[in-house]
């Protein structure tokens, strides 16, 4: 069986990943590597459109698990990378051929301090 972590994810993160910190709940802040996945986003406002960004980041689930970060810790965690600080508002799992626990998670982010207002 191909080890996708060793042959795919780790080389990709080594090349385009950036250093990040993640603080979840009352646990100590951890260091990890993420891939910045902030994308342009357009939402309708009636007949008009408003352009902004949908901030996001990929992380490797094994790296999170090794640091003691479980899935129930993802939401509301504070993630900092590339000079900005965000709050995880939701996430989506990206499965791996080796199983979802060895895949990636895509954090869906919002501006730190932003609420569901």
């Amino acid at each position, binding site marked *: 069986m191909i080890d996708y972590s060793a042959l795919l994810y780790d080389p990709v993160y080594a090349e385009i990943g950036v250093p990040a910190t993640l603080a979840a709940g009352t646990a100590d802040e951890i260091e990890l590597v993420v891939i910045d996945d902030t994308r342009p*986003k357009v939402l309708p*406002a009636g007949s*008009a459109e408003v352009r902004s960004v949908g901030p996001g980041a990929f992380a490797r689930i094994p790296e999170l698990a090794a640091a003691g970060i479980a899935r129930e810790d993802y939401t509301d965690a504070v993630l900092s990378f590339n000079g900005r600080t965000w709050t995880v508002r939701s996430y989506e799992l990206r499965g791996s051929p080796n199983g979802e626990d060895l895949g990636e998670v895509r954090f869906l982010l919002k*501006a730190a301090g932003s609420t569901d207002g």
Partner: protein
Amino acid sequence: MVDVREDILARLLEVVATIPNIRTAVRNNVDLTEEHLPAAIVFDGDEETADASDMSMRPPHRPTVVQMTPEIIIAQQSDQVGSDITTLRRELIKRVLTDTELNEQIVKTGRHGNGAIRYLGCQTDVGWMRSLHGALRAQFMFKYTLKPEDL
């Protein structure tokens, strides 16, 4: 020349620009960025008359009653977008329905005029961007007399 439709739309833009905290007030601009927000956009409205059923010998250039329904968009992105949109809506409705120039000089509402301004309702949209984004679409009806000889 008197073009009541244009006078209404131009005045609407002036009125929405006075809403507190509005950063951008534009007319018919459909492409905004988050730096424009909070924004108010006035869209030129559809018009209707009841003249399709008028089979009389009335000369075509006689005055007729028109109902125009412009739409106003309020867009905001913030930590408290729900409260912000509610506040902006309140100011929008109050300012449009009570504006003296719109009521008394352009549409001519009241006992001796046959014009009218009505708030028809609103719809909302929300979604996530950098923070929570909200938009409110409000419709108003302006009833006025179209006088072809004045155009």
